[in-house]
């Protein structure tokens, strides 16, 4: 009897062994950076996830030309601050997993994903990364996937645009944060793309994740008269780096990596942001019903502001999970299932589906890597007040035939 009692107690305290409540709400967890250096991304992500939640809760009603309303689901969203470091992300993952989250969205940074994702993988909890672009994230395990195309696909596109605009470029300076997984991975891709064009950087400046004063590396690089600067750092540092580069007299082209793919850099580099080139996995100019819906939702929340790629990707992360859950529920796949079984079935369903998202149509490879067909190159155009700007589409590219 004692053993039986202990076994029952053990089953009740073990979330994967618990049965899903019949007709009860399912919990989705989101771990995003609301504090620390990466909070600029976290703000965009929170907005994207909340907009998707509204949409799946039936708000607002679709209007003509928009996507039809999705099936209403009983989903409860738990948003946790993952900070900008590995320890906070791990703590948030553990908390949400122990609270019985069916799946997780996050974390914000690739650096955090390499630390936190193995925990979810070990416990069999599906993770959809909305913004991790470093190589090797889905390969952490079968429960890890992402909707953010990896840097190797996107990063070279903006470089191609810069070299198309000025084919005489021979002297390239590269700046990156050597203590950040995203930045080092993306820089390796930039360097490979340069090598394919027979360009060897005149200098590669290694900065640190928390740096904001770049006087030393900039003056060293400018002594070598670069014609093109390539930057792969996080948003706040990137905004500062661009501003300081321009203040110190650099007038050439600037190509930036995915870390600067947020309008939140505009108040930091201000008028000096003007003209920077960036490759994107999302364009507000994509004319599809779901993107029109997304744009309207965004306009309601942030009038007269363009949604960022990161917001669109976060919306997409929630959308793919919600759609996979809806399909699973329709087939009765969650009936009488334990949380552990539901998590496992959800992961299979997620990977087998195709999704029409604001990013365009996407699906997943069996290892969880996103397959996306369309990418964009944008140029930042700042308004005369120097505080507001927009990513202006300069090129729409079909990669791999354009079909996911």
């Amino acid at each position, binding site marked *: 009897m004692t053993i039986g009692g202990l076994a029952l107690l053990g089953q009740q305290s073990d979330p994967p062994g618990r049965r899903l409540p019949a007709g009860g709400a399912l919990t989705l967890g989101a771990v995003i950076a609301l504090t620390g250096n990466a909070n600029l991304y976290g703000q965009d992500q929170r907005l994207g996830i909340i907009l998707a939640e509204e949409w799946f809760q039936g708000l607002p009603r679709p209007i003509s030309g928009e996507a039809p309303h999705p099936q209403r689901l009983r989903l409860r969203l738990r948003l946790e601050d993952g900070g900008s470091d590995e320890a906070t992300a791990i703590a948030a993952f553990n908390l949400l997993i122990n609270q019985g989250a069916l799946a997780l969205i996050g974390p914000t940074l690739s650096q955090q994903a390499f630390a936190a994702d193995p925990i979810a993988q070990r416990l069999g909890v599906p993770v959809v990364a909305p913004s991790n672009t470093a190589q090797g994230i889905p390969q952490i395990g079968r429960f890890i996937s992402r909707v953010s195309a990896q840097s190797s696909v996107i990063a070279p596109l903006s470089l191609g645009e810069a070299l198309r605009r000025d084919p005489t470029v021979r002297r390239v300076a590269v700046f990156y944060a050597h203590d950040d997984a995203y930045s080092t991975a993306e820089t390796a891709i930039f360097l490979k793309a340069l090598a394919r064009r027979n360009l060897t950087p005149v200098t*590669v400046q*290694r900065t640190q994740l928390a740096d904001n004063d770049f*006087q030393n590396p900039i*003056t060293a*690089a400018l002594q070598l008269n670069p014609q093109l600067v390539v930057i792969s750092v996080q948003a*706040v540092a990137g905004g500062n780096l661009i501003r300081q580069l321009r203040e*110190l007299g650099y007038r050439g082209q600037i190509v930036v990596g995915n870390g600067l793919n947020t309008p939140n850099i505009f108040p930091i580099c201000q008028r000096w942001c003007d003209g920077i080139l960036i490759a994107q996995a999302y364009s507000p100019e994509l004319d599809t019903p779901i993107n029109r819906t997304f744009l309207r939702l965004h306009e309601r929340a942030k009038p007269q502001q363009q949604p960022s790629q990161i917001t669109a990707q976060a919306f997409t992360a929630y959308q793919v999970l919600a759609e996979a859950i809806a399909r699973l529920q329709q087939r009765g796949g969650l009936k009488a299932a334990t949380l552990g079984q539901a998590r496992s079935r959800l992961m299979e369903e997620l990977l087998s589906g195709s999704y029409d998202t604001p990013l365009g149509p996407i699906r997943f490879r069996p290892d969880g890597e996103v397959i996306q067909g369309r990418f964009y190159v944008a140029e930042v155009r700042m308004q005369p007040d120097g505080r507001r700007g927009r990513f202006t589409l300069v090129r729409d590219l079909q990669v791999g035939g354009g079909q996911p």
Partner: protein
Amino acid sequence: MIEAALQTLLNGAASGGVYALVALGYTLVFSVLGVINFAQGALFSLGGYLTFLLMGGHISANGALPGWGLPFALPFAPALALAAAGAALVSLLVERLAFAPLRRRSAEPLLSLITSLGAGLVLVNLLQLLMGAEGYAFPAATLAGLPAAFSLGGARIRSVQMLLLLVCAMVVLVLTLWLERSRGGRALRAVAEDATTARLLGIDSDAMVRLAFLLSGALAGLGGGLAGVSVSLPGPYFGISYGLKGLAVLVLGGLGSVPGAIAGGLLMGLAEALIPSDASGWRDALAFAILFAVLLLRPAGLLGRRFVEKV
């Protein structure tokens, strides 16, 4: 060659000046109390945010009062001065709450380290609560009228960094003169030398402690405002890294030594600037390795005195 050397010197002096300001703040408190005020980094952050608000900045969407701002916008110089004064008052509050009660009970100095660390963390978290965690940048027109950068003998330096360097130099000079020549400065030094004897000579040592906290808070606030204009405010914790660097400078220059804090700051800045640019990502590691080496050779720091414990 000369151009490169001049560039290194300017780069080093610009960052070293801020380190010296922070270290001077630590030094003033350490010299009168023999303890380190770990809230110094938080006061640095506070100075940055106060300057921003006084210049007409508004709290962002994630702050406690989204969109709130002061009904006026001051030019940079008065905003910086008022921010320094604000940080000085908060520093005095830290002294009253985190140091004075323990001092009255003759508690272990180690306890003051912990209470000041706690006060610093509370302050930073209050800033985060009020302002949100996101970065803030000062308007591009903050230093309107000045060119974006200066060229000196072929070396380039941003105007804001040149300003930062000049203000730091001026503050250090004024503070040194005040400590050397003024009645108040001499009283402060007397308390630093021997509080009991100073008290016997009629000096109010408690007042001198409060003065030391006021001055150190003002220095931190000044440094935070200047650094904020130079590199924006990346988040409420941005002062903490300056605080840590200032702490290293304090030890490098010699605990409690004003000239040591200045020399240590400049040396630390120069050491960072001398690190080859393509290894600049290792800057902190190399700078602290230099600190380690100096302390092995001179345990009391560059200009510090060896303390002999009398038994």
